[in-house]
């Protein structure tokens, strides 16, 4: 049964046939019913006619029998009628009520609905005179048999027709629908569309619906092949692009890498591996490296916001403060950024790697990062980190920009040379060429750092010393500039030798020097320092080798204390200046601490 259902499900011809046969069978059943009914009525009618004819046949004899009241003859008539299989019973009754003959060939039916055939028999000599009545009962069984026979015939004919239709429909559908479709399907499965082959319609179906189908399929194949070709071309182009990119990726000097959304490095080119000392054979896709291990100070790239974007000075936000705090904890003396350390570049390599990572490039000053792009939504960020995997520290700039969601692309450049050059330049810019100390610019820079530092730690005191050598102009005028320079060099060396590492000394110009004593709030310490300086300076100095000319240098020193006299470093400089003039007025070669009385005088 299920097999049959499967067949019906999979065979178009069978399904069509089954449906048509079903419809025909239903209609046929209906027709059969109607036909049998009509046939039955017809058979009844025919039966009546035949019975009438039978009676007519024997009527003459019956007339005589009745006329004479001859029972034997009436019996003959009766038997004659009964010998017909369509007659079941015969009764001949004379006009006076006497039954002349009666007979029955089959069983008696109680059914009174059977239409009896009655004939009044006239006298053979007087047609208007009835002599008897013949009653003939038709044989119902025979009748039914005839109807059944007729029905069987119609039914058989119908069945044969049904079979014929079924076979014909199956054959026709299979021949004209299923076979072309199956053939098409087979051809389609073997079609090599790429070679430009076209589907051929089965002969005889070119102009009908199947032909149209084939045409549509061909159009579709054309489109597919075309788009396939396009796809292939694009793929080839992309492969070429990729090879090109791969060649660049592998051979370019710059390091290239990609990060995923979690900050893990998924790929890096050989240049990048060389820069960071990553094993060239390491499969980064399988064993990614966290970006933070390369630029350790930053948990994620997203946290890094370059301060170059913000106005510098007192209005800075906490983030900067945090980083400064961190660097403070790490043992740094001051909150310098790397670019601000021009004055003490030698410290860069002092092993404090924890602090190195945060020395991000300050785009505003250095001009080496893509700061212009940082204002956009897809922000490009630049990091600077120091790598010492092969013994010599290298500075590497990492430029990271989003590639797509959850993917970042980065370019790494070795900026060591550039950075060193920049550092040297910065250092040069802030160094007094004569003494090697800081110059005015270096001092201002340091003062700015001090400003920030003081704002953060207002409790600390810092002493500011302003020095001006007495009568230096005369030395210059008398002995020449070379002698003057020699004196300045001497004084600078003497002063430097007395200072601690973290103190700062600068020559502002001419014979004017300034000293910043960081964290120094005790006057006696300052006084001790000054006294030792004056004492050493008191030793006469030979102006040149072998010459007897010796000069004694005197110096006037003004001192102000940041955190005591004022909270403003600039003002502290002014105060120290005034104190220095006060010392000069007091007879030179001495020192004065700033007091508010200077303001009144």
């Amino acid at each position, binding site marked *: 049964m299920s097999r049959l259902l499967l067949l019906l499900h999979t065979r178009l011809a069978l399904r069509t046939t089954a449906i048509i046969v079903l419809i025909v069978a239903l209609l046929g059943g209906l027709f059969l019913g109607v036909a049998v009914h009509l046939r039955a009525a017809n058979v009844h009618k025919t039966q009546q006619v035949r019975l009438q004819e039978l009676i007519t046949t024997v009527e003459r*004899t019956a007339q*005589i029998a009745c*006329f*004479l*009241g*001859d029972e*034997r*003859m009436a019996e003959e008539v009766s038997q004659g009628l009964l010998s017909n299989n369509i007659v079941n019973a015969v009764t001949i009754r004379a006009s006076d009520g006497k039954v002349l003959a009666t007979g029955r060939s089959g069983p008696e039916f109680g059914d009174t609905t059977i239409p009896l055939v009655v004939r009044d028999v006239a*006298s*053979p*000599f*007087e047609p208007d*005179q009835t002599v008897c009545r013949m009653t003939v009962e038709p044989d119902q069984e025979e009748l039914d048999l005839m109807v059944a026979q007729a029905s069987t015939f119609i039914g058989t004919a119908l069945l044969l027709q049904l079979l014929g239709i079924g076979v014909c429909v199956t054959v026709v559908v299979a021949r004209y629908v299923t076979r072309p479709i199956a053939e098409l399907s087979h051809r389609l499965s073997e079609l090599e569309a790429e070679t430009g082959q076209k589907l051929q319609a089965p002969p005889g179906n070119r102009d009908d619906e199947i032909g149209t189908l084939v045409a549509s399929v061909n159009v579709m194949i054309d489109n597919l092949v075309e788009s396939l070709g396009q796809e292939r071309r694009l793929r080839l182009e992309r492969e070429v692009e990729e090879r090109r990119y791969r060649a660049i990726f592998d051979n370019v000097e710059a390091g290239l890498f990609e990060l995923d959304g979690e900050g893990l490095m998924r790929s890096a080119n050989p240049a990048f591996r060389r820069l960071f000392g990553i094993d060239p054979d390491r499969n980064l896709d399988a064993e990614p490296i966290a970006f933070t291990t390369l630029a350790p100070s930053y948990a994620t790239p997203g946290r890094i916001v370059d301060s170059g974007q913000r106005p510098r000075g007192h209005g800075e936000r906490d983030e900067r403060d945090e980083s400064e705090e961190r660097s403070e904890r790490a043992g740094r003396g001051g909150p310098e950024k790397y670019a601000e350390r021009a004055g003490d570049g030698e410290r860069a390599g002092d092993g404090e790697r924890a602090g190195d990572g945060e020395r991000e490039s300050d785009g505003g000053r250095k001009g080496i990062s893509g700061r212009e792009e940082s204002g956009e939504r897809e922000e490009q960020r630049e990091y600077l980190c120091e790598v010492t995997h092969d013994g010599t520290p290298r500075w590497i700039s990492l430029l990271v920009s989003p590639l797509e969601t959850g993917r970042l692309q980065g370019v790494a450049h070795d900026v060591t040379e550039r950075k060193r050059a920049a550092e040297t330049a910065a250092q040069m810019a802030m160094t007094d060429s004569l003494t090697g100390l800081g110059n005015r610019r270096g001092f201002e820079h340091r003062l700015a750092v001090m400003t920030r530092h003081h704002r953060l730690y207002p409790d600390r005191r810092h002493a500011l010393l302003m020095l001006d050598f007495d009568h230096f102009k005369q030395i210059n005028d008398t002995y020449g500039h070379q002698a003057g320079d020699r004196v300045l060099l001497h004084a600078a060396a003497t002063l430097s030798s007395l200072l601690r590492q973290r103190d700062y000394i600068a020559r502002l110009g001419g014979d004017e020097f300034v000293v910043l004593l960081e964290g120094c709030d005790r006057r006696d310490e300052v006084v001790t320092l000054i006294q030792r300086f004056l004492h050493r300076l008191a030793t006469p100095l030979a102006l040149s080798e072998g010459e007897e000319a010796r000069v004694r240098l005197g110096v006037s020193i003004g001192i102000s204390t940041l955190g005591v006299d004022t909270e403003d470093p600039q003002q502290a400089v002014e105060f120290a200046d005034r104190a220095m003039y006060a010392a000069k007025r007091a007879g030179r070669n001495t020192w004065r601490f700033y007091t508010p009385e200077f303001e009144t005088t």
Partner: protein
Amino acid sequence: MNRVRTFLLASTLAVALPVSADIAVVVSPDSGVTTLTRSEAINIFMGRYRKLPNGDLALPIDQSTLKARFYRALVDKDLAEINSYWARLVFSGEASPPQQSDSAADVRQLITHNANALSYIDSASATDDMRVVLTLGE
């Protein structure tokens, strides 16, 4: 067929014309029967009844010279049909054909001597010694 029949009728009439028309059914004057209906005549001559209306036995007699005319007048059948009718009844034995006489004289003889006798003559030749009970027009 009708034409033939019409022709026969015409020829019969032509033959009969000189003898003049009707046939009279006659009985003996002694008979208790004074009149007969046509139907009663048929029943007796065709063997259905054997008795006269008054209950007496009936003895029908055919006269050969007049037989054809008589049956034609009575039941509108020719002699062949009448003979066939009787031939059919021979085997059943229920009825028997009337006694046959050859001439009107014989009929007269039989009528006058038998009160039950019943026959027919040309109505023109009817006499007082027999009673006309029915006249059949041709």
